[in-house]
């Protein structure tokens, strides 16, 4: 018996309870195991609910800065993209390349740009459910998947043309494959695990910090099992890290792009709110998760440690290494959400297992009340996730529509702003229309291999005789609209043009400047 177990450990083994499957009936009303196809029943509701959450309104919200960047980079020619990636955003390169192909197939509407994220988010939910089923029982998996679907951030980043949904999926998948490989540590399984880690590194390098959690789990496995084949884990890790290394190395040279990230007191205090997308949901889920962890501690210590380090170690790592790496940003840490969902989803299971042997789906499903709670306290945030424009971001879509509705051939446009600049946004919003001429541009962002253009310093020659200028000013309503432009340009525009009209949008205003000498 012992021999067999070493060769082929039971499917649901937790290293703390090597005989758990034999000794403890799980997964059923009456003690028998549920058939394999029940996995589908667990995964489908989570995936479907996530799809509903992410597809509802997926194209309604206006794009924002980072999504405009995705569109811009993914629609460049390959040579321009190559030049861009030499300077910035190398760590997102695989995503841009993927989107390049996607856009070629499905176009560049908001829906199309965001659809991959929605699909990956649904896959992540399904995998969370499967992982929960593998770790605890079918009921816990089902609940964990639904909990995940209810997190406001899952909606938000499932509707966002950025690679974060991909990162979550790879993080969950790698952990699922880790458990499978520990069950039957064949080379094939460990290599598969390693390849998924490469994927995680490719979509977002910070995702690799999940290895901290995997390491803790494997340390427990090594202690519990005299099986050298578990050391093959190291091979998998080496594959993952080697695969991700070139991106990380190149990316570290471009750290200027993330130099604005902060890790001060308020950044730390706001982190749960930002990661979950709602502090109420964060509080509820983390509270239930901690409770579940406490109840599971005795019988499932390895899994609890795996999930807790998955949830907590990455932010901690990013915080501690912040002076060097500057990676303490909520979006980079979204892949920790499944860990919270899995722990909280196991709340019902945990209560039962704490009090007695055996369990049942019906009792595990009692944790569905937590799902109800998450949807109840999270509703305002779920609505807010669909806010257009994203809170605090300029309403470039509205501004562009106002300009496009009235622009004539021969008009020019000037972009300025304090935090954002409308040039790229207008590029997207006006992609199928005729935008006014960008009069100040000396060298385009394509030529420079960056996201910004170089503007000319001699406005008199650049602007020429343009009769009407649209000034797109991403400034607050109370600011001088020309803030951000060089003094010489400001002086020229003020002397040569008269302001005749303006329109306010959220964090951006559009001004009409008419040439004075024509009056």
């Amino acid at each position, binding site marked *: 018996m012992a021999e067999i177990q070493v060769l082929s450990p039971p499917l649901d083994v937790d290293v703390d309870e090597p005989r758990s499957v034999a000794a403890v009936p799980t997964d059923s*009303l*009456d003690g028998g195991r549920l058939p394999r196809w029940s996995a589908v029943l667990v995964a489908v509701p989570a995936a479907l*609910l996530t799809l*509903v*959450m992410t597809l*509802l*309104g997926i194209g*309604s*919200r*206006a794009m924002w800065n980072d999504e405009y960047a995705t569109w811009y980079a993914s629609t460049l020619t390959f040579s321009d993209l190559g030049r861009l990636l030499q300077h910035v955003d190398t760590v997102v390169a695989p995503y841009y390349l993927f989107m390049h192909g996607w856009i070629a197939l499905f176009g560049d509407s908001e829906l199309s740009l965001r659809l991959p994220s929605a699909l990956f988010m649904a896959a992540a939910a399904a995998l969370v459910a499967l992982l929960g089923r593998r770790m605890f029982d079918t*009921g816990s998996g089902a609940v964990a998947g*639904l909990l995940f679907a*209810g997190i406001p951030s899952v909606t938000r980043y499932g509707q966002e043309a950025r690679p974060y949904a991909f990162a979550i999926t790879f993080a969950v998948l790698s952990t699922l494959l880790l458990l499978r490989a520990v069950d039957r540590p064949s080379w094939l399984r460990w290599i598969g695990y390693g390849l998924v880690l490469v994927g995680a590194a490719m979509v977002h390098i910070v995702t690799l910090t999940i290895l901290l959690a995997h390491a803790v789990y494997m340390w427990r496995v090594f202690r519990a099992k005299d099986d050298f084949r578990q050391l093959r884990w190291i091979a998998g890790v080496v594959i993952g890290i080697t695969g991700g290394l070139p991106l990380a190395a190149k990316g570290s040279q471009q750290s200027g792009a993330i130099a604005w990230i902060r890790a001060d007191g308020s950044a730390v205090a706001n982190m749960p709110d930002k990661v979950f997308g709602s502090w109420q949901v964060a509080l509820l889920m983390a509270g239930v998760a901690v409770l579940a962890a406490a109840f599971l501690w005795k019988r499932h210590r390895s899994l609890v440690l795996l999930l807790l380090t998955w949830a907590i170690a990455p932010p901690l790592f990013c915080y501690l290494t912040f002076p060097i790496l500057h990676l303490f940003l909520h979006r980079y840490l979204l892949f920790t959400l499944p860990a919270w969902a899995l722990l909280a989803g196991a709340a019902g299971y945990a209560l039962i297992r704490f009090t007695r042997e055996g369990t*049942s*789906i*019906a*009792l595990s*499903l*009692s*944790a*569905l*009340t937590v*799902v*109800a*709670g998450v*949807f*109840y306290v*999270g*509703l305002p945030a*779920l*609505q*807010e996730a*669909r*806010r*257009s*424009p994203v809170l605090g971001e300029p*309403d470039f879509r*509205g501004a562009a529509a*106002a300009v496009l509705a009235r622009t004539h051939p021969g008009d020019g446009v000037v972009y300025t702003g304090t935090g954002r600049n409308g040039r790229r946004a207008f590029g997207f919003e006006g992609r199928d229309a005729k935008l006014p001429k960008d009069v100040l541009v000396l060298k385009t962002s394509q030529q420079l291999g960056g996201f910004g253009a170089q503007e000319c310093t001699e406005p008199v020659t650049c602007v020429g005789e343009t009769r009407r200028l649209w000034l797109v000013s991403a400034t607050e*309503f*109370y*600011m*001088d*609209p*020309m803030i951000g432009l060089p003094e010489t340009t400001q002086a020229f525009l*003020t002397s040569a043009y008269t*302001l*005749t*009209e*303006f*329109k*306010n*949008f*959220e964090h951006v205003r559009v*001004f009409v400047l008419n040439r004075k000498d024509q009056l």
Partner: protein
Amino acid sequence: MKYERVTRRVTGLKRYSVRIVAATLAVVVAGVAVFNAVTALPYKRGLTAVALPSSDAVFGAYLGPAAKGANGLLAWQQFSLTAAPYALDFSAGDSWESITGPEWMLKPWQRSGRRLIYSLAMFPHQPADAPAVSELRLSQCATGAFDLRWVELGRNLMGRGMARTILRPGWEFDGSWYPWAAHGRKQNYVNCFRRIVTAMRSIPGQKFQFLWNPAGGVNQFAAEEAYPGDGYVNFVGVDVYDVSWASNTYPVPAGASEADRQARSAAVWSNKLNGKSGLRFWSDFAAAHGKRLVIPEWGLSKRLDGRGGGDNPEFVANMIQFIQDPRNGVAFALYFDADSAHGDLHRLSSTTSPFPKSRDRFRRMMERVL
């Protein structure tokens, strides 16, 4: 044996039925919560931000009484680069004849075609009046003793085609400096205000509007306690001058650095904006009562006692920004472009203005204001 099996089966079923009921309940509860959430999602159009309305605030100024003011506004328009459709004037308070709109007062405004904001003394008064006299007059007004005077004023205005005049009865009543100061007799003030409104509205064809105008800032009492009511008020007004009696503000000490001066100016502005009875308060108050906020008087100040901010371009910029911010709902704002008799200087448009830097700033900002 058989019996035992049956009981086991029954208790077993019982046990499962409890579980099944619990599970079903949990599924239903979660299902309802999810359904409620999903159906409450704004998926069709998103929580789309409504474009902010652009400000329709109108700028203007006070340049002096009657003919002087009417002529001055022409130059002001050149200076401010904007049309000035509103005009402000003050009734002299020496007699009922002055209050009820004498020809010398009304004719220049009639000819200017501008909409007059007529600051209305609530009763005639002399500098030497004892407080008891003012108190008596205010109570007389409150009980309707002067109603016919208000009708007379209304008729005078109507007779000159000035039916759209905005009346500003008993302005700055929350201060101590006018005889209609409402401190300690708020009800009389409120009733007097209401009598004026009622009397003037009794004239057929009138289109008068009424401006209720605290001085704002910390005064003798919370001005909102003397609000006559939504039915009697068309505009809520507040006057803003760059003056301060708070410690570490004005006077700016001689030889202070520019940075120090700006810090003091910023502190004063912060109080004007967010302080007790400040601009934000009145903007919110007006909005809560469905009225537009107006700023019938605003200005820089250079005072003999040093309590004015002097040449303070930041104050000008802050005021223009506040007036332009559509969220504040300002309908019009008039710069007090005249010096007062007791050495309090405000003049801005004049080339001999004591505030040259502010004057430049005002011009530059108005070039970009529409």
